[in-house]
């Protein structure tokens, strides 16, 4: 004879209903949190994969932020280079005018203007990046050039720290001073500040200025070439950053997809499973009540 003892019946019903409740609550948690796993042991392999994906995602966020900084710095450098080019063009115009028929006073006035341009150029050379450092100073924390009255001395460092864009790729977010301002005139290395300083001094000093003007024009010409080369390089670097940004975005989407596939709770199937668990729970509660009423004592009078 198989007879189930009464206390075993209650114990077992309780256990089964508890198990169903736990299952329903777990499914409910999955729907609320949108995550299938509440602890690693729910699925160790998926949890380990999720950890790696999360780490990659977190580090990619920093890559993105570093890349944004580099982009801002390069845009600042680009606009500074644009202003520098304008200043050089103005200087060229003035130098050409100074080469024409002008009185000594007029020449001196032009010289004054050129001296002013030299200072503008010096200020542009010391323009700051988003982090407050000189754009054209390499790794220095202060100014790139210090004024010597007629010229300027480069006080920055000889290289630029590369910005990391992730996946081992880097970009140089700035220039060293010599990369923009150093020029070669008749075999001698000089810089734009000295060229302008010398021209201003010659024009203000009076006398024959044709030789000085010629030298300055040659210097300004090669200076302009140098600056536009730097502008081209800036454009190329900005393109590179954009390319890496796009790449990071695509990778990010893939990672998000994989995360959802590995650790996400699928709403539809979770809902269906919850509904199933609820139905079974309700049915077992109803049948429990029916069964527990089914005692002979209720019938025997």
């Amino acid at each position: 004879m198989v007879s189930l003892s009464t206390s075993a019946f209650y114990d077992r019903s309780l256990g089964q209903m508890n198990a169903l409740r736990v299952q329903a609550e777990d499914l409910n948690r999955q729907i609320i949190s949108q995550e299938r796993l509440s602890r690693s042991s729910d699925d160790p392999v998926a949890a380990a994969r999720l950890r790696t994906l999360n780490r990659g995602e977190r580090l990619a966020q920093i890559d993105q932020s570093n890349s944004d900084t580099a982009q801002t710095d390069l845009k600042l450098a680009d606009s500074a280079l644009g202003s520098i080019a304008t200043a050089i063009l103005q200087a060229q115009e003035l130098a050409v005018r100074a080469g024409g028929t002008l009185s000594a006073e007029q020449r001196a006035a032009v010289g004054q203007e050129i001296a002013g341009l030299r200072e503008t150029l010096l200020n542009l050379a010391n323009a700051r990046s988003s982090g407050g450092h000189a754009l054209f100073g390499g790794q220095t924390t202060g100014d790139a050039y210090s004024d010597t009255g007629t010229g300027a001395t480069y006080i920055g460092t000889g290289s630029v720290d590369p910005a990391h864009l992730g996946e081992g790729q880097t970009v140089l977010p700035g220039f060293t001073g010599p990369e923009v301002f150093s020029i070669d005139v008749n075999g001698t290395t000089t810089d734009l500040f000295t060229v302008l300083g010398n021209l201003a001094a010659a024009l203000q000093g009076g006398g024959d200025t044709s030789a000085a003007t010629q030298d300055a024009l040659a210097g300004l010409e090669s200076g302009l070439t140098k600056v536009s080369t730097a502008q081209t390089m800036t454009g190329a670097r900005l393109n590179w950053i954009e390319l890496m940004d796009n790449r990071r975005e695509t990778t990010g989407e893939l990672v998000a997809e994989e995360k959802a596939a590995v650790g996400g709770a699928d709403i539809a199937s979770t809902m269906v499973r919850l509904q199933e668990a609820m139905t079974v729970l309700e049915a077992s509660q109803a049948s429990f009540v029916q069964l527990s009423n089914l005692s002979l004592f209720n019938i025997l009078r």
Partner: protein
Amino acid sequence: MASDLLSIAASGARAARSALDVTAQNIANASTEGYVRRTAVMEEVAVAGGLLRNGDISLSGVRVGGIDRNADMFRQAEVRRTGSDLARATTELSGLKNVENALEKSGVYESIVEFEAALQQLSSDPTNPSLRAAALGAADAMAGKFNIAASGLEAAGEGLRFDAAASVDDANTIAQELARVNLKLARAGEGSSDKATLLDQRDMLLERMSGIVDIKTSFGADGAVTVTTGGQTMVTGGVAGTLASATAADGTLNFTLDGTAITPGGGKLAGASLALTEVASARTRLDTLADGIASTINTAQANGVALDGSTGQPIFGGTGAVGMTVVMSGGSGLATAPAGSAAGSRDAGNLSAMRQALEGSGAAQGMSTLLFDVSSHIAGRTVTHDALSAIASAARTELDQMAGVDLDTEAANLMRFQQAFQASGRAMQVASDIFQTLMGIG
């Protein structure tokens, strides 16, 4: 002696009363723990005819021969064995879950990633004071998380040891109780309800004992039990041994019975022992990770110069996960520039080296592997636990089918014995009628 209708009927009524008592007792104890269903055993009372009166009718009614306990030794042993296994698996699993909680919920892995991220962020502008402070803050947070994880593990171990100590005390109490029950059993009369109660007690104590430590049992003729565990005698007759536990240096437990070392193979004690081994191994691995990170970073620091151009000083102090601290006071001490750089250098050469060293040392990967090992261990143990739980509940159901009280059966018995009582009463009535008839003749 000739048959006597009245006395036969009276004995029937008495027996039915006794059977009703037993039924009522069963109903009253339907949910009493350890109660085994009783049955009144009826015996016919028949007296053989005397000399030369072999053909005589000699019916003398019925009597209750004894109170039967519907216990099955084999099934009870199965319940104890499977219960022992289940208790071991449950304790081990809950200990392991505490280990997982300590390692995972403390967020050590995330804090390592955050530290890596902060160093990476710093590389965009190595002299930026807020980025430096953020990196040092991340280092501090990471050290804190390691401390939390280590103390979580310590607490998990402490809890397991506390439970095990309480279980050892329990086991000793139960052993003494068993010895006392053994002595009482020797004096109880066979088939008496007193004996049945003592046997109930004995079986309940044995079941509780098997939840603590795996036991082997053998029973004497009077029902007295001899309990052995790990080859050592725990209870025999009226003598109970003493179980004791000692904590080793690494936090694991050793058990002795009367001074002889034993290794529990089941029950809570075995589970606690297994879980504590896991705690100790997790702690060692966590310490190794913490020390690895600290020495990697401190070595990298020494290879570079701080913001003021001086040689980099260690960031981390202390040993092990529990002792890990940040000893550097300000973010300016981070040695981002390579050795020989001037003060205020934005050269991030040493920072890159530091990041590479940290990634190369596999700090994050190591933590992830530790979590994976513990969690996959739990996943495996959960399967074992579920299987053992099903086996134990099957064994329990088997036993309950025989030993448990089913109220429907008892209700039917109640009716049956009530009818038997009424029938015997009717028989007495008949005897009285016959007597009256005989008296009427005269």
